[in-house]
């Protein structure tokens, strides 16, 4: 427990928070880089995934990209881009965007695909236009799963941004690599606890958003089905697609 006490002492040491390589600055860098990466990746992956889920075309591509890229070792991608693009932020940002795409793509695709075909047919029969079907039927119903994809991607980015500190002077990971050199375990453990807290807060926030964006009708239908056999049948296979790996 002494180790934890030292780590917490490091975390609460006011000297450690100030300056260009203090905790405040590193935390901000970590958050800004993660947010920028997430936005870029979302702008690319969400529309593509939505279109695939809506039309049902390119399904194989979505499954292949999200499945195949998942086996890709994150550190390998980071160091490869580091060599190609040199020192600086470009390499980690690009690598992080690539690694964030699979969960986003899978989430968007699975979200739009999860909407019952009969519901879509009913909307069409009522005279809804294609854009209305997408905007007023598929998006609201599929949104919790889409947000689930964003949630996985956010966790992935926050975790991999730690590794990005291996090749660029950025983020909370710096404390760990500095600590490894100077054998300062209190600093390493303190920074680890901080990033764990950050990840859990972000995860919890997205879980809340997921709950908030679930339409009441969907929630009622789901709770009415719990315990019933058919509702559970598809879950294992579907989650394999939407969930990422621990990173």
């Amino acid at each position, binding site marked *: 427990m002494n180790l934890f006490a030292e780590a917490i002492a490091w975390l609460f040491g006011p000297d450690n928070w100030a300056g260009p390589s203090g905790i405040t600055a590193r935390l901000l860098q970590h958050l800004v880089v993660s947010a920028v990466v997430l936005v870029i990746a979302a702008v690319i992956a969400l529309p593509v995934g939505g279109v695939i889920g809506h039309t049902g075309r390119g399904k194989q591509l979505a499954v292949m990209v999200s499945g195949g890229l998942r086996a*890709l070792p994150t550190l390998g991608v980071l160091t*490869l881009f580091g060599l190609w693009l040199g020192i600086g932020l470009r390499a980690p940002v690009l690598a992080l965007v690539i690694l964030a795409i699979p969960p986003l793509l899978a989430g968007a695709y699975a979200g739009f695909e999860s909407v019952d075909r009969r519901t879509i047919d009913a909307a069409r029969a009522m005279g809804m236009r294609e854009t209305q079907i997408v905007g007023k039927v598929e998006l609201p119903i599929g949104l919790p799963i889409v947000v689930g994809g964003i949630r996985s991607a956010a966790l992935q980015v926050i975790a991999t941004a730690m590794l990005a500190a291996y090749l660029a002077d950025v983020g909370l990971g710096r404390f760990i690599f500095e600590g490894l050199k100077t054998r300062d375990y209190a600093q390493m453990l303190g920074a*680890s606890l901080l990033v764990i807290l950050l990840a*859990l807060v972000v995860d919890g926030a997205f879980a809340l958003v997921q709950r908030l964006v679930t339409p009441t009708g969907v929630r009622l239908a789901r709770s009415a089905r719990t315990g019933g056999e058919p509702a559970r049948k598809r879950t*294992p*296979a579907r989650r394999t697609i939407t969930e990422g790996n*621990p990173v």
Partner: protein
Amino acid sequence: MNWLVQNVGLVGELLLVHLALSVPAIILSFVIAIPIGYLAHRQRWARGVLLTLCGVLYAIPSLALFIALPAITGFGIRSPLNLVVALTLYGIAVMVRTAADAFDAVSPDTRLAATAVGYSAAGRFWAVELPLAGPVLIAGLRVVIVSTVSLVTVGAVIGVQSLGSLFTDGFQRGIVAEIVTGIVATMLLALVLDALSVVAGRLLLPWARRAAPGRRSSAQPVAVEAGEPA
């Protein structure tokens, strides 16, 4: 290619080290997750708690866990044991929910029938529920394999040797071929272990494949989906 030819020995050595780190973690997490998943399947109260815990564990960034774990276990940061424990925890986090789903997917009618023909609770678990949950368990195992093999490489930045050392070494010495070799070797290793688990599944659970095209009993749709590449 030249780099690979000159360093084939090194790559082979690291491949074995990588295997020695990932296989124990994969097996341990699979074996530990099954009883936990069964508990989550049987007890409603346990399900919420266990699945939430797994979710929390799953959200922890790997580098942070590798660093924080020694404070609890007492292993050194650079100790391979530390890495295996961390990877086992991640494997459990992934596997428990799949295991709970796998047992959920066993038809209640089948369970009742097993009880009716005289199986004890333990006998029913080993002879009926576990085999029927098998295909989904294997599907979960495949996810654990791919994620574990990939995660082992992260250990390289804290000084635990594996194929990931090709990334750190290649980066420091500026050898692209070394990094590419590492990526390809890691993915190939995951692919081979994945294929092995599929073959093992087919051998141990022959009915899953034979029953697949029919879709007659209630356990089959799951078996069909579990067969798809994850």
